[in-house]
């Protein structure tokens, strides 16, 4: 079987699971097993796909497409042929594998976690729908299909966040996620339309080729930048980037395994994945703005996470922050490390979320870390896996997180050395420190120290097998050995040296970052065997940035962890005192930088205020004018009243009545008497003859 067929089967397996589970779930108690068995099957096939692609077609992309809609030549536009297709490159199969792995463990985890829910089988059906949509995003070769599955992902996310829709906060969170995502998608849709109008195709590769051949939207580099940024809007929404990040923390209202699957590992990664896909057509200006948005999104949520007390919210802000990291990395050209971090982050963040689910499950739905503590004795396995994933997220050596994060930080340093811009380096290292701090704060408050809620603590217990097994699996994947033999340098590992490579850029050289342009003479003089990313200059900078980064990042992470222990474990420092000292800063962080309040007052309030203003105009000015000239008004109003009733309303109603009247008129002919009919036929024949005889 060829790989395309295999990938199509993999794509439709979760959909089959969705349909079967949804339609049998009402009457069939074991319906959820269908979905679980199918997803395990899908995972096995994904492994086969991954293995075959990487062993057999390492350097070739497998593409297959067919004509979906062929409208032929359309007046005023030209030929419209819309194709759907699948593109399997290394990035896609690795991502496909990741999606199915995490989806599978989340399915298995949910078997126990969701037990007893009244919509048990429907939950699994939704998970299947989500997995289908996400796989579609991963394997598509064109931007239209990307958009379709993008929206399907949005839909399934909405269904899952609001899964417990009886709870108002859950249904509100679902709506918020959906609407905020729409704002981003609007931009993305506009970008897609520009691409289609310009290139008459949706296929990534054809668009890249056309850009490389010098064909630009509206023939200007400026519009290429705009198009890139419009497409990026979609990623801002889906990957919860500043300023649309507000939906993700609220999305934690959904069941915890859903948070692990959708809001940590896969759906929010779709935005990053999309940028990875369209990277070759992003101009230097677009990349810079993307990097800035990413940096802001990395920094602000990291500061918010410092003071939050809900275990899932801390993780949610951490997710936004890490996604910002990836986006920033893409913006500064660290393409491979961004994708690498996407994968490693998916594993350990899913592990953290599932671990928090395990804690919440055993604490009977207590989510406040101030009320936990000491749990490591009760839940040793959960603790161990959680700790391992935390180390990875903090970027401690020997973990996968160290490898990928180190690469991103090296990228920022390289960027600084190439451009002299210190902003991203500063943000990168600061966020690394903050991350280490808040993650260890979370671990210490949850698992160390004395239990604060004795009653719940006594009832706490280690989770059952199906919940523990995914944790062990995912935390195991947070160790460096899966990715590279050298724990300090990911470059020598198979993932980066063989599997994932930066793409060839299509953007005209004049619109790129200067350091992404290869100088001609250099190439002729220096004949190096090694692979070159973008340009020799850039490759060199990355190399020389590598060693300082290891020490620096190890130092800042250690600093963060040290402070966490000083504050919360050894109590040498008192967090409350510090909070009191920097009250405004603390409040800013604790209240999430007032984003929700700001949006409420500006957008929601603004809309209301605007309508109030219109009402005021109506009441004061219009009525004032009307009332002001009382005598005149009486006469005028009588006339205008008549006009209103007679003409305006009349016109509106007339259309309806007229349609009805015509109908009645026609009905008059339908007498039911066949004699009449025949007379009518003869009569109309005569009219027809009369009309056409003159010709």
């Amino acid at each position: 079987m060829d790989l395309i067929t295999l990938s199509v089967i993999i794509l439709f397996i979760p959909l089959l699971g969705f349909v079967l589970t949804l339609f049998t779930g009402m009457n069939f108690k074991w319906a959820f097993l269908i979905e679980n068995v199918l997803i395990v099957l899908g995972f096995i096939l994904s492994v086969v796909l991954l293995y075959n692609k990487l062993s057999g077609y390492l350097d070739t992309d497998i593409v297959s497409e067919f004509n979906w809609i062929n409208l032929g030549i359309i007046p005023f536009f030209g030929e419209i042929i819309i194709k759907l297709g699948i593109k399997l490159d290394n990035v896609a199969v690795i991502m496909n594998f990741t999606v199915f792995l995490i989806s599978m463990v989340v399915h298995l985890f949910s078997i126990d976690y969701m037990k007893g829910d009244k919509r048990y089988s429907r939950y699994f059906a939704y998970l299947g729908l989500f997995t289908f949509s996400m796989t579609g995003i991963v394997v598509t070769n064109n931007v239209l299909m990307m958009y379709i599955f993008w929206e399907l992902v949005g839909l399934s996310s909405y269904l899952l966040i609001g899964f417990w829709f009886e709870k108002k906060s859950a249904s509100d969170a679902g709506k918020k996620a959906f609407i905020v995502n729409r704002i981003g998608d609007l931009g993305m849709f506009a970008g897609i339309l520009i691409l289609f109008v310009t290139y008459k195709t949706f296929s990534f590769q054809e668009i890249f080729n056309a850009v490389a051949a010098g064909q630009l939207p509206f023939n200007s580099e400026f519009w290429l930048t705009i198009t890139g940024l419009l497409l990026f809007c979609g990623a801002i929404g889906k990957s919860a980037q500043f300023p649309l990040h507000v939906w993700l923390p609220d999305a934690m209202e959904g069941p915890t395994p859903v948070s692990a699957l959708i809001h940590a590992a896969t759906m929010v990664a779709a935005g990053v994945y999309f940028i990875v896909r369209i990277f070759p057509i992003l101009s230097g200006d677009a990349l810079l703005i993307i990097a800035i948005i990413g940096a802001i999104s990395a920094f602000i949520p990291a500061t918010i996470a410092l003071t939050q007390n809900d275990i899932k919210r801390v993780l949610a802000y951490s997710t936004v922050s890490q996604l910002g990291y990836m986006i920033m990395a893409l913006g500064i050209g660290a393409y491979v490390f961004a994708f690498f971090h996407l994968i490693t982050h998916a594993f350990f963040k899913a592990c953290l979320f599932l671990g928090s689910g395990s804690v919440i499950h055993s604490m009977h739905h207590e989510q406040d870390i101030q009320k936990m503590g000491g749990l490591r004795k009760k839940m040793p396995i959960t603790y161990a896996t959680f700790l391992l994933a935390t180390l990875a997220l903090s970027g401690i050596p020997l973990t996968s997180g160290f490898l990928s994060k180190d690469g991103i930080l090296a990228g920022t340093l390289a960027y600084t050395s190439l451009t002299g811009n210190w902003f991203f380096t500063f943000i990168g290292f600061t966020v690394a420190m903050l991350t280490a701090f808040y993650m260890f704060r979370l671990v210490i408050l949850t698992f160390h120290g004395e239990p604060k809620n004795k009653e719940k603590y006594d009832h706490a217990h280690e989770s059952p097998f199906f919940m523990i097994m995914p944790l062990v699996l995912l935390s195991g994947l947070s160790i460096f050995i899966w990715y590279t033999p050298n724990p300090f340098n990911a470059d020598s590992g198979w993932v980066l040296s063989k599997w994932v490579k930066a793409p060839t850029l299509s953007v005209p050289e004049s619109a790129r970052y200067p350091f992404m342009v290869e100088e001609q003479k250099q190439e002729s003089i220096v004949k190096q065997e090694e692979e070159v990313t973008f340009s020799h200059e850039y490759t060199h900078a990355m190399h020389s940035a590598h060693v300082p980064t290891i020490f620096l990042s190890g130092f800042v992470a250690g600093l963060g962890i040290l402070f966490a222990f000083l504050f919360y474990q050894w109590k040498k420092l008192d967090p409350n005192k510090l909070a009191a000292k920097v009250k405004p800063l603390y409040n800013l962080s604790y209240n999430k930088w007032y984003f929700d309040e700001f949006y409420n007052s500006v957008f929601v309030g603004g809309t209301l205020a605007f309508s109030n203003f219109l009402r005021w105009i109506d009441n004061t000015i219009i009525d004032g004018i009307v009332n002001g000239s009382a005598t005149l008004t009486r006469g005028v109003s009588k006339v205008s009243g008549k006009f209103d009733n007679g003409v305006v309303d009349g016109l509106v109603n007339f259309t309806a009545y007229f349609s009805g009247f015509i109908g009645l008129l026609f009905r008059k002919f339908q007498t039911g008497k066949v004699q009449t009919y025949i007379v009518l036929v003869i009569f109309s024949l005569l009219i027809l003859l009369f009309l056409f005889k003159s010709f």
Partner: protein
Amino acid sequence: MEAPLKYIFDSIQYLKPEVAVSIFLAILVTVDLVLGKKNKQVLPYIALAGLVITGYFVTQQFGTSAFASVQHNIGNFGLIAVDSFGNYFKLIIILSSIFIVLFSISSIEIKQVFDRHGEYYSLIFGMMLGMMLMVSSADLILIYLSIELVSLSSYVLAGFTKQSLRNSEASLKYIIYGGTASGIMLFGISILYGIMGTTNLYAINTILQNGAFQPLALIISCILIFTGFGFKISAAPFHFWTPDVYEGAPIAITAYLSIASKAAGFALLIRFIKVTFIQTIGEDGYWQLLGVIDWKSFLIMISILTMTLGNFSALWQDNLKRMLAYSSIAHAGYMLLGLAVFSDQGVMAILIYFLIYLFMNLGAFFVVMLIANKIGSEEIDEYDGIAYKTPLLAVSLAVFLISLTGLPPTAGFIAKLYLFIALVDAKMIAVAIIALLNTVVSLYYYIRVLKHMFLTKPKVEGERITIGIADTVVLLAMLIPIFLFGLYFTPIVNFAKNSIALLGF
């Protein structure tokens, strides 16, 4: 061998489907006579087998393009033209016949006349034979004979369940009306023969290309002949029989009349106009007609009249069958526009439209029939809150009606889309807008049914309406294509594109 016999044997290779239908007609009659009263339930299955075999022969003929029953004295033109266009319509007729037989199996109305099942299915086969000849006849005599064969069978079928009064009334009206129409048509045919001296369409075309003739007589004859076609496709102002007969006939037969006999009528009309009056076909697929009759304005006028009348009359109907009757008149109006474009693209749009129309219209009638089986009525008021008694049927009917309106993502949208593309491409913008406005009107009466089904509280709490597995399967067989072709329609478009070729053009 004797010459006439030789002609017959030469022709038979092209007439396998028709022969198969005739043989199965005979088998049905025989089996009906031989079998006792108890075993008549095998009849529909024999009919299905016959339809499948006929369908097989039709698919075998794909790509063939030849005359059957050749008359050597008039330039080797034949009575019957076997070509892709005809085969496409034959497939539509067979497909709809299969559905109708399936409908009949579960129809209570038909079950009531159990002992006359043999007649019922043999009449359907007779009608089918007529329709298959209609879509491929290239001679005025055969046109008339085949139309009569179809009409006579359908007169009987419309009043088949003699028990009910409205049945017999429908049948009687149909006969009188149909008799008048075919009389007028025969009159037209005789005038045309008088002018041309031949009844073969291809021969007439040759004469028209060359010579001068009396235009007035020609126009009169054509309009008179059109009466017959208009009667079959229920185009205004020849549609008067439609609502009464559709309402009165058994639902399965109503559905059959609305698809199969209309399809045959359309095929015949397209063939008649294209073969007789064509001069050349341009590179871009547009037809140059001989300037004898202004067919374009004639057809545009008829089609606008038809769709407007159908849609506006449907607004006031309280009986769902009658509403669907008017709706089918309106759809005939839309499809006539596809012909009025006079291009291959327009014909392609009609072909696509018919295939999709088959599923959505049959589907709507099927749901109405299943519900009528249980509640014994087709009044829209009786549908109040029916969605809570039978969610599957209500949702399916909603899908079919939305598709009939022409909204995405249903196949009905694709049907209208291609029609409007053809219109816009031919620069007939004004006509396209009128058709579009008509669609808006149709939205009202289709959605009104949805309102009754989903939003109105039922007057009396009834029992749940359940349907059997077989019926569910038949329902899905029509429901799934609606979505499938709404989302992935390239196959049917390609199929239609390959089927626009008429013999000789």
